[in-house]
């Protein structure tokens, strides 16, 4: 069984017990434990079930690479799936549960899949469930969804109570990884005077070295690390952070750091996670190395673990994973585990060394301690179900003939070490294959390059393939000096610390154990634990023609789980290479992508949630609307009143009331959101002629004109009223959503095409509040305010005037978007609320009625006025909308003119705007299409028209609509049918003039 020893544990504090639960059962650990170490101390070896076959799985590693021990943390609003038990620090009251099991971890129904494993090979889902198609949705998919999948996503209504933040940091040198190489690199760069930021993903400095042993400068590793950290802390130019992972390296020295501030201590004030957005001139990746598992039958049975992990649990946490541990290794490092276990008084029945002649000094030391060492030996098969009970040993080279069986409850395996090259590779760093050490290493001649074309990443230490203590430290020093020099800081040449550690013999790469393993062994030899990919799956993929590693990865799902194949990639590659008869470097690696380990969605969002997610733009009258029962409609970042329902009124009733009141007497519209752009300068008229299809340069001062803007591709992009303020100045009104876009459009043309024209533009949208005063009594209420002559003679339709209205400095435009007598009154934004209140008060005797966007839309549709975004969709030209009258024939050029000369645009045979009137008076479904005979080339029904706007008109008492219909204006009076969303219910409508109400314009011209 796994248990806590009576002493030991360099990271745990035995004076501080910590209570927590796993699957509802109470456990006790110590401060400093990870969830994995505390569960092991409580003999909870099994921590989850595998993805596909639901096989029992125990923890296999002790760090970020863990594929098996994924757990749910927290409950309700703080629930989080797929947390690695090996990197979760326990705290008082922690609640964890296992994943992917039903009904329980111990008794899982889905484990039946394991008995079907011969029938669930690579690509099984692709092959099996493609036919017959109808079965997929109702039979296969529900079954697969029930039986597959890891953690559960949080409930959709759950709201994360924690806070997160982004943090920007700039530094000369960023060192990722706080092992001895990273510490040495930071020391060198710091001493050279560079600004240094050092990140370590765990809570502790020094990496593996304190567990692995050796001496640095005559000190034991813990003492040296403490001294190094002390020196770094004392340097004002150095910042250091634990619990902060270098998540990804991107172009031009951009690096994401992921700091976990309160995961280990919930309830502490401040954000839970912090996303560091770092811009570094130079990056040193001292990210260490990861031990590889070995592929033998039963290598996933709980109790089979990486040798380094067995050692970590023992030394760091005082936890013995088993009473009797068989070590199986291809290199000298495995002996460290055997020696450490023996020293702790635990039984090590044998070390099985795959190498014919065994190892070096560490092997000798193990033998001296009385440990049985068998060379040229491996494991053919692990015995046990939910826990290892023993191993069958065999010669490494053969097909697995039994030599002997050894009873044990733990297997510590070491397949050699792979440098963590993920960050090096994220931004284009290349790799080379090191035959002697059997690993990919950074090719420093092909480093990621920055904005200046020079390398900006330096790998250091074990991450650079220097796996032994002495070379790790000296390479860390080289990395720090290289980075410091590249940022213009003269690096020192002080001696690198002296180290002493046993000399290690060369490893022997073993990709399958035994090397001639028969099918029944290979089919139980796991490569990717998390995605349940076996040696036989990769071999099958190779037989079926998947030669590219990228294809094999996707076909077998090798390395595609949440651990991104940290343990499985190289073993999988080697298996594929062997199956294809190629060398490993020829097969190549898959792409390493950030983040290194998953980061929280909260950290990505940072502060940008709730009301901070997007700025809310408010008009000066916003509070009045809010206080008067407004129903809001989002328009861009603005909130505009949709309508103002009174008590007991539906929004539809409110809209009808607002329209009727406006047409009968007086309506008020908050039009402040309308875009307002000043175009000024000696060449303003010339520029306006290019922007608009109309001849704006001839607009008289004091007059207004409705204008159209097109893209260079000819399509209508915005519309609005232009007022000429003086000879050199135009005030452009745009749609509410179009102001920023149109202003950018103007600047683009001015700066990049007509840069010699003297024109200045300014977006003054928010400088003015604007109110539409609309209806038969519009003039009366304004005259009541007093101060300006607004008579028909003094101020005819489509003019503007400056003046004072009711004591407020105002600009009045006599324009109409409703067909009523209408004025738009603009005042400085700070006076907007005063104007609104004054109008409401003065208008009381006329039943002044505030109206919203829906009433605005209905009234404009009754008049046949188009709306950008309804009648236009990026394929519509002004000519389609019968707006030829707004296109100047006198101009040589405007933006979009050349495009509109193309044969398919300069063509009568197009869909054009018409009015549509249902025969039964009903309202046509908005967006409905009118089908016609025949089929398109894609086999869909041909169509001959589409509804672009559709409303019930309270003024006319029936449904009205506008639409684009093939050659519509030539088909007046014709009845065509429109299909509802179900595709079959048809509504007949007659093609009519789009102006439904007051076609002579009697109401607005008074």
């Amino acid at each position: 069984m796994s248990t806590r020893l009576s002493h030991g544990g360099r990271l745990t504090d035995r004076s501080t017990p910590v209570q927590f639960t796993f699957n509802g059962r109470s456990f006790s650990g110590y401060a400093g434990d990870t969830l994995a170490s505390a569960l092991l101390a409580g003999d909870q070896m099994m921590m989850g079930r595998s993805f596909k076959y639901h096989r029992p799985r125990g923890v296999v590693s002790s760090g970020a690479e863990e594929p098996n021990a994924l757990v749910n943390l927290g409950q309700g609003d703080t629930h989080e799936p797929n947390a690695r038990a090996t990197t979760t620090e326990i705290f008082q009251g922690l609640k964890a549960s296992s994943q992917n099991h039903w009904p329980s971890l111990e008794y899982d129904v889905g484990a039946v899949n394991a008995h079907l494993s011969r029938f669930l090979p690579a690509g099984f889902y692709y092959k099996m469930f493609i036919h017959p198609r109808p079965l997929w949705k109702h039979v296969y998919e529900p079954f697969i969804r029930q039986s597959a999948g890891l953690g559960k996503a949080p409930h959709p209504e759950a709201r994360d109570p924690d806070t997160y933040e982004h943090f920007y940091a700039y530094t000369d040198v960023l060192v990722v990884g706080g092992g001895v190489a990273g510490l040495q690199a930071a020391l060198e760069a710091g001493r050279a005077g560079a600004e240094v930021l050092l990140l370590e993903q765990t809570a502790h400095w020094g990496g593996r070295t304190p567990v692995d042993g050796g001496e640095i400068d005559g000190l034991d590793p813990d003492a040296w690390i403490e001294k190094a950290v002390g020196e770094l802390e004392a340097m004002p130019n150095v910042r250091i952070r634990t619990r902060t992972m270098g998540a990804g390296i991107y172009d031009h020295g951009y690096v994401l750091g992921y700091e976990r501030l309160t995961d280990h201590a919930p309830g502490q004030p401040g954000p839970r996670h912090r996303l560091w957005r770092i811009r570094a001139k130079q990056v040193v990746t001292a990210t260490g190395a990861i031990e590889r598992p070995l592929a033998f039958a039963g290598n996933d049975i709980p109790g089979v673990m990486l040798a380094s992990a067995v050692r970590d649990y023992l030394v760091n946490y005082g936890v013995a994973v088993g009473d009797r541990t068989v070590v199986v290794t291809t290199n000298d490092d495995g002996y460290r585990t055997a020696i450490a276990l023996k020293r702790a008084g635990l039984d090590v029945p044998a070390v099985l060394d795959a190498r014919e002649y065994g190892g070096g000094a560490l092997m000798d030391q193990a033998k001296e301690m009385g440990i049985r060492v068998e060379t040229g030996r491996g494991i053919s098969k692990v015995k046990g179900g939910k826990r290892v009970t023993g191993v069958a040993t065999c010669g490494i080279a053969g097909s697995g003939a039994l030599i002997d069986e050894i009873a044990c409850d733990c297997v510590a395996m070491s397949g050699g070490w792979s440098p963590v090259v993920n960050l090096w590779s994220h931004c284009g760093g290349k790799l080379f294959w090191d035959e002697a050490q059997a690993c990919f290493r950074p090719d420093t001649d092909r480093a990621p390059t920055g904005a200046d074309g020079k390398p900006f990443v330096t790998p250091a230490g074990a991450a650079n393939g220097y796996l032994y203590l002495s070379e790790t430290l000296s390479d860390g020093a080289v990395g720090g000096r290289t980075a410091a020099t590249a940022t213009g800081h003269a690096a020192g040449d002080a001696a690198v610390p002296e180290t002493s550690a046993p000399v290690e013999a060369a490893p022997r790469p073993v990709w399958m154990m035994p090397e001639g393993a028969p099918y029944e062994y290979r089919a139980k030899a796991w490569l990717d634990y998390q995605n349940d990919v076996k040696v036989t799956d990769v071999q099958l993929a190779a037989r079926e023609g998947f030669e590219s590693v990228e294809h094999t990865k996707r076909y077998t799902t090798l390395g595609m789980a949440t651990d991104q194949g940290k343990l499985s990639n190289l073993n999988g590659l080697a298996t594929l290479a062997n199956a294809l008869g190629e060398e490993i470097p020829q097969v190549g690696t898959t792409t390493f992508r950030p983040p290194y380990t998953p980061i929280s969605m909260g950290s990505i969002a940072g502060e940008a949630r709730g009301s901070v997610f997007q700025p809310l733009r408010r008009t000066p009258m916003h509070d009045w609307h809010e206080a008067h029962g407004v129903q809001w409609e989002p328009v861009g970042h603005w909130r505009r009143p949709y309508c103002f329902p009174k008590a007991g009124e539906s929004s539809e009733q409110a809209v009808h009331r607002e329209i009727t009141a406006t047409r009968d007497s007086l309506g008020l519209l908050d039009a402040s959101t309308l875009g307002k752009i000043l175009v000024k300068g000696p060449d303003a008229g010339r520029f306006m002629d290019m922007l608009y299809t109309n001849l704006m340069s001839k607009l008289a001062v004091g007059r207004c004109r409705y204008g159209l803007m097109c893209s260079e591709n000819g399509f209508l992009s915005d519309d609005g009223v232009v007022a000429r303020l003086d000879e050199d100045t135009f005030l452009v009104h745009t749609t509410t959503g179009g102001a920023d876009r149109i202003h950018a459009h103007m600047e683009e043309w001015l700066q990049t095409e007509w840069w010699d024209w003297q024109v200045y533009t300014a977006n003054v949208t928010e400088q003015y509040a604007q109110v539409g005063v609309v209806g038969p009594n519009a003039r009366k209420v304004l005259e009541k305010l007093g101060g300006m002559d607004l008579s028909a003679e003094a101020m005819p339709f489509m003019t503007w005037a400056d003046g004072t209205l009711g004591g407020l400095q105002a600009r009045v435009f006599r324009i109409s978007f409703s067909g009523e007598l209408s004025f738009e009154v603009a005042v400085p934004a700070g006076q907007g609320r005063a104007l609104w209140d004054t109008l409401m008060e003065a208008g009381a005797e006329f039943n002044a009625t505030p109206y919203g966007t829906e009433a605005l839309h209905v009234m404009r549709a009754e008049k046949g006025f188009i709306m950008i975004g309804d009648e236009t969709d990026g394929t519509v030209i002004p000519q389609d909308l019968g707006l030829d009258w707004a296109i100047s024939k006198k101009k040589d050029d405007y933006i979009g003119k050349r495009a509109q000369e193309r044969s398919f645009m300069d063509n009568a045979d197009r869909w054009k705007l018409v009015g549509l009137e249902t025969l039964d008076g009903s309202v046509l479904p908005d967006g409905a299409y009118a089908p016609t005979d025949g089929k398109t080339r894609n086999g869909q029904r041909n169509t001959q028209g589409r509804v672009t706007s559709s409303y019930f008109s309270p003024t006319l008492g029936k449904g009205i609509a506008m639409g684009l219909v093939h050659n519509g204006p030539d088909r007046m009076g014709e009845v065509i049918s429109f299909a509802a969303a179900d595709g079959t219910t048809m509504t007949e409508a007659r093609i009519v003039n789009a102006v439904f109400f007051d076609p002579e314009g009697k109401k607005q011209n008074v």
Partner: protein
Amino acid sequence: MLTIQCPHCGVQAEETELSPGGEAHLSRFGPGSEDQDFEAYLFFRENPKGVHFERWRHVHGCGKWFHAARCTVTMEVFGTYSAQTTEPPKALRDKISEKRPGWTWRDIA
């Protein structure tokens, strides 16, 4: 995430401050131009593996458009210059030649 220096205000701008504007040095073809010329102006774009000239706007900064010469493979930025010119400056072209001998882009070399 790129950093590109705005030649107008001098800021070493983050990519999030900038908005891309596609290929640089297009010649506008207006009314009266041939269909092929107009088509090329509106739709045909270079897609080089290597040296490229493109437009950027320092939209969350000084608001000015500018041009950048960049390597689409390595993301190296060779230099930036005013948008108010019809071809890359000689000094910049020479600098690119030093780093990428024999480069061409459209009819520029």
